């Protein structure tokens, strides 16, 4: 037995085989904690009778395994205890992950401050700590020929549609790939990636958000070694308002929610509208404003459209450099960029001041959105809008707008219409995302996601 394993792992010098009283303990040193091996196996073996081997191993996660699974368990941080023909796997995994920290990519002032980390067990634990019911199911899959990454579908079987679970499981089973490095691999592999620039799966590192969505009837996919849980299905509106809105009073948050939608469209349309108005439809600008525009544009030699493309391009560069460059170098880069773009470009008459305003508004409104794919899809459509506005004016903006809407309505997230809850309209989901009802009145789940509609009974207060 030991020889076979030794043969299989001959290139892994960290394979250790320890023999005590005819019992072989086999493990991969790099994955295991020697303290645990000592406590769970070695101590027991040294002081008890080998005949009752099962009782000698005190490790909490111990299972009898078959010979063919040995390699798999070894690679997952188990120690194999072999005596005669019997094989036991004992979990002695070393702590290779960081501890639970605060969410960096989705910060919120209120609400829980814990975030997922790279350990799938910890992540599952963070969810299970919040949902204490046997209805919480997690189905495990091993994906990746080389990495054998653990992927887990988490859902509530009394709320989530079974069809959806089967569909996702099917797609996960179909994956044939060398390795899964991050949960985003999974999200790209189980959707038609090229069908749309819009994200059709949410990513979150907040366990509270995942739990909130699970309770609404969505399902989540956890991937080992990734701090981001996937939530699906996801609709257009899910990416605009963060779920942390639920921690504020409904009456207050609605204006903010509307503001975010306005910001989305400003970020999408501002440069295009500016170019269309200033080059084609000057009659729509009030006379006084037009005169001020004329004065500002007087000294700028490049056409407004080119100016817009140039500025957007420069700002994208600036933004990218800010993300890529290590923060330890300080913020000198962004200050330099802002200075060059803002002050110097205007005084050198390369761009007009109004263009700076338009581009700043575009980018500031864009900062509201944290999801990477949302930002990227806005950018893509912004260029489309701007391009058509450059060639056709307001008419072009309308063409692009029509395309945008038609596209939005034509895509699906796991068989559910992406434009839900606007088209088809559903008031229950509408008042969870676009606007918010009072918590007491928000008693129903949405029909699109589940048949189990009643969420809570309305309170008598």
């Amino acid at each position, binding site marked *: 037995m030991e020889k076979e394993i030794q043969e299989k792992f001959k290139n892994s010098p960290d394979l250790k085989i320890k023999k005590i009283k005819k019992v072989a303990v086999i493990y991969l040193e790099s994955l295991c904690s020697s303290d645990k091996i000592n406590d769970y196996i070695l101590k027991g073996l040294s002081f008890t009778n080998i005949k009752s081997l099962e009782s000698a191993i005190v490790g909490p996660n111990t299972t009898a395994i078959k010979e063919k699974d040995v390699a798999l368990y070894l690679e997952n941080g188990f120690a194999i205890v072999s005596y005669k023909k019997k094989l036991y796997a004992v979990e002695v995994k070393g702590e290779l992950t960081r501890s639970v920290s605060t969410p960096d990519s989705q910060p919120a002032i209120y609400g829980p401050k814990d975030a997922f980390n790279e350990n799938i067990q910890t992540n599952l634990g963070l969810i299970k700590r919040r949902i204490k019911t046997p209805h919480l199911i997690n189905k495990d899959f091993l994906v990746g020929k080389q990495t054998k990454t653990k992927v887990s579908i988490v859902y509530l079987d009394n709320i989530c549609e079974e069809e959806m679970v089967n569909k996702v499981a099917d797609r996960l089973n179909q994956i044939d790939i060398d390795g899964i490095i991050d949960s985003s691999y999974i999200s790209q592999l189980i959707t038609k990636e090229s069908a749309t620039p819009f994200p059709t799966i949410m990513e979150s590192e907040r366990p509270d958000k995942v739990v909130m969505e699970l309770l609404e009837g969505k399902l989540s996919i956890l991937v080992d070694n990734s701090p981001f849980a996937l939530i699906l299905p996801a609709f257009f509106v899910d990416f605009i308002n963060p779920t942390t809105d639920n921690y504020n009073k409904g009456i207050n948050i609605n204006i903010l929610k509307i503001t975010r939608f306005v910001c989305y469209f400003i970020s999408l349309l501002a440069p295009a509208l500016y170019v269309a108005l200033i*080059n*084609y439809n000057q009659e729509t600008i009030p*006379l006084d404003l*037009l005169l001020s525009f*004329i004065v500002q544009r*007087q000294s700028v030699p490049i056409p*407004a459209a080119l100016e817009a493309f140039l500025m957007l391009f420069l700002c994208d560069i600036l933004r990218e450099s800010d993300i890529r460059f290590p923060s330890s170098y300080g913020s000198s880069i962004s200050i330099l960029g802002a200075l060059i773009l803002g002050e110097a470009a205007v005084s050198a008459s390369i761009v007009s001041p109004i263009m700076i305003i338009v581009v700043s508004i575009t980018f500031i409104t864009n900062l509201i959105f944290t999801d990477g794919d949302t930002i990227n899809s806005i950018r893509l459509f912004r260029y489309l809008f701007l391009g058509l506005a450059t060639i056709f004016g307001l008419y072009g903006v309308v063409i692009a707008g029509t395309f945008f809407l038609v596209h939005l309505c034509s895509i699906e997230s796991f068989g559910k219409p992406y434009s839900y809850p606007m088209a088809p309209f559903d008031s229950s989901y509408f008042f969870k995302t676009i606007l918010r009802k009072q918590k007491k009145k928000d008693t129903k789940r949405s029909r699109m996601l589940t048949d189990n509609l009643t969420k809570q009974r309305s309170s008598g207060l």
Partner: protein
Amino acid sequence: MKKFLLLIISIFLLTGCYDYKELKDIDVITGVGIDYEDGEYVVTLEILRATASGDKQELKTVLVQSEDEVFSKAFETNYTKISKLTYFSHLQLIVVSEEVAQEKGMQEIIDFLLRTSKIGNTFYTAVANGYSAYEIFDNKQKDEAVATYLVTLLKNSNENSFITVDNQFDLLTSKLLSKGHDIYLPSITIEEEDFKVSGLAIFDGFDMVGYIEDKYSTILSLATMSSMNNIYVNDGINAINIDKSDYKIEVEKDKITIVLSLEGTIKSLDKEFSLKDEDTFTWFEDHFSELIKKELETSIQELRYYNSDILGLGNKYYKKYPRKYHDGIGNEIDYEIKVDLDVNKFGILFEVIQ
């Protein structure tokens, strides 16, 4: 795929960039003046140019003038004198001199303005009273184009508010082209280098026939607009202010009845009156009803003298009895005026302060 590509390319190459104008390349025209001298039309364009000197933005107006026997030629010769693209979408005002309106009539001008695609129809029109249109535009204002200044003046001259409200070009032409309706234009004059809105120029068809005074035009506004008015009526000592007015023109076969329902408040009164007394209000209502009725009658007589039907009585008649209608019926038919004045009792001092 080939067809699709061809379609896309042709869209971009054939129709792309239609109507593209750089802001630097346009000259915003705010006003047009039309004169008639020595058998020729003289067309003045007021161009608004904004320049920046340092941080300060300066506005400068430039006048360009061309003349020709034919109006459209005179108008378009101006384009050859302007280096940039003429941009008429922000045209505010067209000023027509008295000679043009009276002698040549507005027909040729309106015809041209309706036909040309460069000019919209949201500008105002006025008559230059006693001055030429060029002189009006030459009377330059400090920070503003003359046209902009005049339009604000016309809109805000409260007493004559009814003059400008439906004076935009589109409404003007629709009125002019409908049966039994005559148009009126505000007239502008210069008094000690300041602009002043003077009487109302009234038309019979395309030709201007004369001016009527402010007092007539104010009272006539009661029979042309139902809206919040602010009209002051007095008999020397007592005065009321009409805050709200509504009118209805009832047409019968041989008679037209103008019914005014007005609401007003007392502005000043003789010290003999006491507002604690209910009779005072009745007196005011009766007295001023009669007064307004009389004034409206004189105004209509004045209009009939000029044969101008700016109240559109003929149009109302045409709508009800199209077969019996003939031109000029609005100025011939019998009419009756009924005034129903209601004096409000809110917020008043009971006694006259002595």
